[in-house]
């Protein structure tokens, strides 16, 4: 299972773009990269998933370079409500269904 490394915390201001990078140097060929968001007292919720290049949805963008050894979650124009913990998961459901590791994530603090 690919080990992931992400910053423990980040600060931002309302209206700014926030980029959170996750390193996963030993990512396997069939692994997908997924980001989850967790608000206090709630379960994590899916934000975005990708395999390569760029993925965009209504909430965020995910940038994955050609070597796939890292990925960057981009949140455009954050608001106070984006204050949360963000987790990067890397794996393949076929092999990692019992090993996905949420870790401590990145705690994003958005200030007014």
């Amino acid at each position, binding site marked *: 299972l690919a080990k992931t490394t992400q910053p423990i915390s980040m600060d931002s201001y309302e209206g700014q773009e926030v980029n959170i990078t996750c390193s996963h140097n030993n990512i396997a060929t*069939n*692994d*997908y990269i*997924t980001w*989850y968001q967790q608000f206090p*007292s*709630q*379960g*994590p*919720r*899916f934000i975005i*998933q990708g*395999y390569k290049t760029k993925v965009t949805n209504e909430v965020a963008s995910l940038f994955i370079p050609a070597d796939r050894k890292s990925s960057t979650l981009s949140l455009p124009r954050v608001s106070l409500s984006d204050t949360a913990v963000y*987790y990067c998961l890397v*794996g*393949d*459901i*076929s092999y*990692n*269904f*019992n090993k*996905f*590791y*949420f*870790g*401590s*994530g990145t705690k994003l603090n958005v200030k007014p």
Partner: protein
Amino acid sequence: NAGVTQTPKFRVLKTGQSMTLLCAQDMNHEYMYWYRQDPGMGLRLIHYSVGEGTTAKGEVPDGYNVSRLNKREFSLRLESAAPSQTSVYFCASLTGGEGAYGYTFGSGTRLTVV
């Protein structure tokens, strides 16, 4: 609404008491999980199930028992609660294919053992 439902949402137990946390999903997912989350920490896997009638230990299984009653329901039982089991418990289901995957989490059960 489709999703994962956990009951109860809050509970206070005395040391030595027992209780069962219930989880149900209506998305027809095979995989189900129980996690615990302590303050400021990530999620730690307690037990999981890959299908009806199957269960397996996760990272921190001691003190907990689970039952996969059917495809929808996955319960977590504390036989003799201890203060160290004070935590927020999350149930989740997982689906996917060809490498891709996606978790759906319940809203959690906040358990305090005094």
